[in-house]
């Protein structure tokens, strides 16, 4: 006979306590527990929780937490499966290990809609809950909404779900009073952090700073089988547009952006078919961007080009400046720090929970749906 959810949860609670009361075996270094948050990671499918164990174990080695990994199987028979483990980072020199806790759950059938209650029963007290929701979000999702209500921060991956999903969560959080509003993170947004920094860097020299108001062309290269603007590219565009005050406008059927001074920014999209997998970053991965700006005789052409394979994390940043017949060229090789999933989640958890730039970029990018870009 299958155990009832309450019996399963009682056993989980007992096992969690037993992890820290059981004496260490002889010769084994002592363990101590650290916990800064409940990290609830939810995805679709009965195998999801098991599949994400390696990533989450790496994350909690740096962000001590009670990790609760949940696979949702709404089409299965009503049932709740659970297991408990300690995740200990070995310390050098036999020093006491510092451990996090991991609970894996598989919620089936109606248990999916009551998941919030199950999670609530086994969360560590007095520490906040971060909900990492790695699936699409619909406004009437019976599993997502109650869980989100208890979260102090919600993290999505728009590259795996969609800008529309992220946009729904932005609207959901904005409807909550500022005092109670949960933070919001997006793994795709974190992956873009290095791109943003490298774009900003093009305009850091005081001499080039005025050119930022005179960007006239942006060319985006993304790994995509078709002409659809991917979430990463849309977010990057949204970020630039909202920072620089660009508005959308169509001209002869193609999307253009209008600068505050009335000038146009031409947007070009170049899909580039990629061999191999997606590197866990969605199909339409951003792989390059070119930015051109000019004012009078001064022109700047900047480029960020990532290495082409999905697993590669390196990029080349180039800037060419010319004025009055003189040209200067700078080039750097750098890492984008966007490949390793555990690192991306860890960085997301370390970012400030409230990021207006993300919310602004998401809402702007969401409006781009259905617009046509110029393709090259």
């Amino acid at each position, binding site marked *: 006979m299958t155990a009832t959810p309450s019996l399963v949860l009682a056993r989980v609670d007992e096992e969690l306590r037993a992890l820290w009361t059981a004496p260490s075996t002889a010769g084994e270094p002592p363990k*101590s527990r*650290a916990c*800064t948050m409940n990290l609830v990671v939810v995805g679709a499918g009965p195998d999801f929780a098991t599949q994400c164990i390696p990533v989450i174990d790496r994350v909690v*080695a*740096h962000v*001590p937490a009670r990790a609760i990994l949940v696979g949702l199987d709404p089409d299965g028979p009503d049932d709740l499966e659970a297991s408990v483990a300690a995740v200990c980072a070995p310390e050098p020199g036999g020093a006491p290990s*510092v451990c996090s806790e991991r609970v894996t759950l598989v919620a089936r059938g109606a248990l999916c809609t009551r998941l919030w209650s199950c999670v609530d029963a086994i969360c560590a007290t007095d520490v906040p809950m971060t909900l990492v929701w790695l699936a699409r979000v619909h406004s009437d999702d019976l599993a997502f909404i109650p869980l989100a209500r208890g979260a102090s921060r919600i993290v999505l991956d728009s590259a795996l779900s969609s800008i529309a999903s992220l946009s729904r969560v932005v609207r959901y959080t904005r409807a909550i009073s500022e005092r109670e509003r949960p933070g919001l993170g997006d793994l795709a947004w974190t992956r873009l*952090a*290095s791109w*943003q*920094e490298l*774009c*900003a*860097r*093009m*305009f*850091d*020299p*005081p*001499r080039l*700073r*005025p050119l*930022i108001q005179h960007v006239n062309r942006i060319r985006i290269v993304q790994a995509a089988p078709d002409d659809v603007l991917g979430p990463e590219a849309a977010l990057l565009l949204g970020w*630039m547009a909202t*920072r*620089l005050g660009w508005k959308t406008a169509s001209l002869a059927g193609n999307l253009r952006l209008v600068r505050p001074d009335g000038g146009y920014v031409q947007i070009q999209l170049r899909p580039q078919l990629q061999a191999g997998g997606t590197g866990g970053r969605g199909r339409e991965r951003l792989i390059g961007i070119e930015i051109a700006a000019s004012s009078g005789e001064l022109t700047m052409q900047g480029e960020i080009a990532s290495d082409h394979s999905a697993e590669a994390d*390196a990029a080349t*940043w180039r*800037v060419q400046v010319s004025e009055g017949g003189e040209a*200067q060229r*700078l080039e*750097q*090789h*750098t*890492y984008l*720090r966007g490949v390793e999933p555990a690192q991306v989640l860890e*960085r997301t958890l370390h*970012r*400030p929970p409230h*990021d*207006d*730039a993300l919310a602004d970029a998401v809402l702007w990018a969401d409006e781009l749906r259905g617009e046509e870009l110029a393709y090259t």
Partner: protein
Amino acid sequence: MVAPNPLRRGLVEDRPSDSCAVVIFGASGDLTRRKLMPALYNLAWGHSLPGGFAAIGVARREKDDASFRREMKEAVSSFSRRKPVDPAVWSDFEKGISYVRGAGSDRATYESLKEHLERVDAERGTGKNRLFYLAVPPSEFGPIVEGLRASRLVTPAAQEKQGGPWTRVVFEKPFGHDLSSARSLNDAVAAAFDEGQVFRIDHYLGKETVQNLLVFRFANSLFEPVWGREHVDHVQITVAEDLGVEGRGKFYEQTGVTRDIVENHLMQLLCLTAMEPPISLSADAVRDEKVKVLRSLRPIERSEVPKEVVRGQYVRGVLHGEEVAGYRQEPDVSADSRIETYVAMRVFIDNWRWSSVPFYVRAGKRMARRVTEIAVVFREAPHTLFRARGGGTTPNVLSLRIQPDEGIALRFISKEPGQQTILRDVAMDFRYGATFGSNTPEAYERLLLDAMRGEATLFTRRDEVEEQWAYIDRVLRSWASDEGTPPHAYAAGSWGPEQADDLLVRDGRRWRKP
């Protein structure tokens, strides 16, 4: 005035400085190898260096760019917290590394440097912004500052305010030898640089745990109400090193632990512990509050020095199970040296909050273990309900461990489970490494980046340095006039001379063994 880069607004990671060239005087020295270049490399690894960046070494030895780069790569391989060296990051980083041979006192050095910097500006896009880092002995500060000024390598601060390039200068400690030399040095620096261009390093301020002191005190509502004379019995600040002088006998013979540690690191820890909440976290707001503490220190009159200050010198002893030599047996140390390698002081802060609360501070070399700690010892409960076996109850102690095992512990009393009422000291222990991981940035990474960004909060201001010296100078002058009394001997591997224990015992207290 150039408008801020709007794309930087709201970026939460990777905040690099403006493009700039970092010029390191003393490029052949240990500090460059062990700290500065690894810190710059780590910043490069973490995307924190600007797009246009160059690091230029200046030193007397003859070498070319290629051999300097090789040396620096070896240094980074040995001392960076990120190992092994990443070939791609290094390959870019080393393109910006170059070397200029020259001496700080030689005018020709600055002419060569000027030409070199102009070339670097053109090739590396460093935008004429320069950060001069003086990793040299204090005796060279003056000539270098004058050389930079005379060669017009210093852009006036007013030009920066109008959007022009900037010049900043970083001084390593010790800044001066006493109050008079610190003032002279400050005057010489002020003749070439605006105070806003001057960054005096106390690398303790770059440590995460020291920065956390402000957060701990002013972001938690729990502690501030009990942080004062009504609840605190006394405070102990310990900066103990297990190392000896490690081949720096010559340097130590001229400084001693009071100038090396107490005048700067220890005074800064005291200020951060005792200061009032600043009105903001701006550089001047924080430094204003620290200066107020320094001005409130009760001066130790010459006649009081023997009673309030204990100095010691280590003799042969056993440390970590091994016999170690005494200070006078160290190379380059005089056989009858009277330099102190240990000092303990009872310090009072005459202000509303701390009136009559003693701060016992101590610093020493070759002590039983390496530890830096601030311990706030609270008053005992006014009435004891419980009879503890073997005496009364012990007071609550909040200890802030700066290094190693950075963390915060609160000691309190608990009942042991059982039929009898047996009281036991227990500790709530928070360790940074356990909670946030151990790969935190080195102090020099933060400080270099702050200097490049022009953020001065973690650097000491002129008046701070002079107030620190003003307080310590009385003690030094008293010792100088009392040449007949040698420092008390203490065995290497101990916690200092017995006389230092008396400093507390006569007040009915004792040193902690952190």
